[in-house]
């Protein structure tokens, strides 16, 4: 590999914003310690391969205490098996918290790697009535210093020009080759006094914190933010999702209209278009969730939210940072699991990701709506509370509580170890950089489409194959709906349903319900479609008739058992794919699938038996 320049700095130093603005590609920034979990590569300049830059996770010191810090220091020491030691360092210091930057610099200076320093937030120092003396710092350290304001573009051209020219980089004088922490901090503190005068703490942040961290008011605001967050992901994303579904539905109709009826048309419409559509349909929620989370992170609120919920999450062996991924998973586990990257501790991140699929995502809603409206009477409890709504709310609450309880069990067994003490720096509140936001959201969405998307499309095609083969010869004059029904019943998927039926018989599922479960292995909402096909009604005409047919043909105990099954079962290939990517192995999605299946089976069995006992 040719020469690379590593971006090194403390968390919240503005390092990743600078990286995003300079490269405009693959990277994640956050006003939240520890977001950059994997190093991002980028190019600066117009010539391809001219200047490769590498953004390392933010670190406080070269002695790591978490996996992301481990990665950064192993790269810098040249001991990382995958990433070669960088040939140059762009060191980033935040002027408003320069003492921590200088401490880290005192360690970095011993690596013997040529360096230049960019000092960020010089505008904040001015705004607070302070002075930062970059000339004095340059004289003390003997290394080039460039003041920059990333989101305003100040100093960027200079950084770009200097990165392009190796001669600007200087090997620093090594500071205290053997000094202990205290000696380095005392040096950093003394140096800070020489280069920075900052009369006051950030008054705006202090005042805002009085409100946002108030024991009662702060919690109330936090809950309102969460309700808004939750609500917006459902209400703002759903029109777009409907639009995408309609578009893909139209495409399928076009195919049916243009191509002669047969296996090719069926493959294109129900295999390929349906597969791609099932990926694209997640995009609005992923975009929206990421935009909201990135804004909350970059403005500094997420660190405060973590503070507010830390105690509650502590009951379940998790910490404050676990809250955001779990909340996001109520919309969709995919962006939720992706956002678990904000948790620095490996054990807590794993426990959080593995219980994320138990949070009730929006794909379960079509199944819940269908079964609840078919089987739960529209009576009111105490005269005003809808029984149907109560059942729906109950399903959400049971799933969340069981999830937190599973996290507790995992923290006591699989992810057993010393408790990672909660420690988080409060960055000052800042205006998020729009360019950085766009780059981040674009990258995450692209990431999802390329890595999860490929898996989803492939598996959708496999499922199509199982339901389309072997081909059935229809007697003449059979209607399309009856043809579909016969095809599904006699396909590999249908035979599989009958073979597997004994496994689900204790739960009260017949072979039709079993095919519904198998068919919705790729995505839960497919259950509704499969039920429609099996019970020979046209689901596109509204599910009123389907409800009636289901009510007449499925016993109540079986219906409730199916509901209980969907509360827990991980019937989502996309979630499995993203879990594989985020944990780096198929072992964990397999584990998640297995334990949720056991839970689903147990709860469905209990529901079935109890309902039967109550009815008789």
């Amino acid at each position, binding site marked *: 590999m040719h020469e690379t320049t590593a971006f090194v700095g403390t968390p919240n130093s503005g390092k990743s914003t600078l990286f995003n603005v300079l490269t405009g590609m693959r990277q994640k920034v956050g006003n939240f310690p520890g977001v950059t979990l994997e190093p991002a590569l980028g190019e600066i300049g117009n010539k391809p391969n001219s200047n490769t830059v590498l953004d390392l996770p933010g670190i*406080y010191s070269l002695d790591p205490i978490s996996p992301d810090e481990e990665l950064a220091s192993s790269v810098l020491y040249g001991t990382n098996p995958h990433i070669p030691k960088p040939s140059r360092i762009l060191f980033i210091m935040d002027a408003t918290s320069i003492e921590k930057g200088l401490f880290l610099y005192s360690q970095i200076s011993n690596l013997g790697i040529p360096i230049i320093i960019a000092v960020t937030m010089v505008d904040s120092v001015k705004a607070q009535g302070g002075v930062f003396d970059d000339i004095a710092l340059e004289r003390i350290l003997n290394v080039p210093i460039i003041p920059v304001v990333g989101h305003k573009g100040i100093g960027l051209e200079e950084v770009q020009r200097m990165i392009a020219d190796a001669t600007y980089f200087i090997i620093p004088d090594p500071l205290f080759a053997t000094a202990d922490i205290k000696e380095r901090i005392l040096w950093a503190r003394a140096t800070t006094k020489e280069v920075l005068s900052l009369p006051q703490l950030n008054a705006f942040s202090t005042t805002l914190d009085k409100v946002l961290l108030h024991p009662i008011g702060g919690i109330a605001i936090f809950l309102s933010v969460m309700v808004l967050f939750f609500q917006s992901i459902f209400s703002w994303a759903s029109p777009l999702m409907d639009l995408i579904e309609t578009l893909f539905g139209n495409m399928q109709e076009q195919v049916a209209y243009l191509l002669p009826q047969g296996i090719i048309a069926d493959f294109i419409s129900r295999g390929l278009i349906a597969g791609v559509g099932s990926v694209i349909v997640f995009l609005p929620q992923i975009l929206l969730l990421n935009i909201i989370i990135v804004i909350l992170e970059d403005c500094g609120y997420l660190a405060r939210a973590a*503070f507010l919920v830390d105690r509650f999450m502590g009951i379940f062996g998790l910490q404050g940072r676990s809250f955001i991924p779990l909340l996001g998973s109520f919309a969709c586990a995919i962006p939720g699991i992706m956002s678990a990257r904000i948790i620095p501790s490996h054990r807590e991140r794993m426990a959080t990701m593995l219980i994320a699929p138990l949070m009730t995502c929006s794909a379960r809603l079509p199944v819940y709506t269908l079964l609840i409206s078919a089987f739960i009477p529209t009576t009111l409890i105490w005269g005003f509370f809808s029984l149907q709504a109560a059942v729906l709310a109950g399903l959400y609450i049971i799933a969340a509580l069981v999830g937190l309880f599973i996290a507790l069990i995992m923290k006591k067994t699989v992810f057993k170890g010393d408790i990672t003490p909660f*420690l988080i720096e409060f960055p000052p509140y800042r205006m998020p950089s729009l360019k950085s936001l766009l780059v981040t959201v674009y990258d995450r969405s692209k990431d999802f489409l390329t890595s999860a998307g490929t898996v989803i499309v492939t598996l959708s095609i496999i499922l199509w194959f199982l339901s389309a083969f072997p081909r059935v010869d229809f007697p003449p004059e059979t209607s399309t709906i009856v043809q579909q029904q016969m095809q599904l019943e006699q396909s590999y998927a249908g035979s599989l349903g009958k073979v597997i039926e004994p496994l689900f018989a204790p739960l009260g599922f017949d072979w039709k319900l079993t095919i519904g479960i198998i068919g919705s292995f790729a995505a839960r909402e497919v259950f509704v479609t499969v039920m429609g096909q099996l019970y020979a009604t046209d689901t596109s005409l509204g599910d009123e008739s389907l409800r009636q047919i289901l009510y007449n043909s499925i016993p109540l105990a079986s219906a409730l058992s199916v509901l209980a099954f969907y509360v827990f079962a991980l019937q989502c290939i996309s979630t499995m794919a993203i879990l594989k990517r985020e944990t780096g192995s198929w072992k964990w999605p397999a584990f998640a699938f297995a334990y949720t299946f056991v839970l689903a089976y147990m709860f469905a069995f209990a529901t079935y038996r109890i309902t039967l006992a109550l009815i008789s």
Partner: protein
Amino acid sequence: MNICDLAVGTEAILEGFSTDSPFTRRLQEMGLIPGTIIRLIRKSPFKGPIEIAFGYTRMALRPYSEDKIYVTELLNK
């Protein structure tokens, strides 16, 4: 006294730590070395995390663990 026994709003001088752990080392690397003057900004209910300020840094930590942080209260600042 331990840091969480401080009253909200009081200043104290950091004396040392009960253990030498990654957690207490990290606190020192962030600038919390003995002799540093800190201020307890807020506590959260039910023994939740506390917020402290020193120098230009503000941080939240959950101090109710093995790692005690010893401080001496400054009476008149």
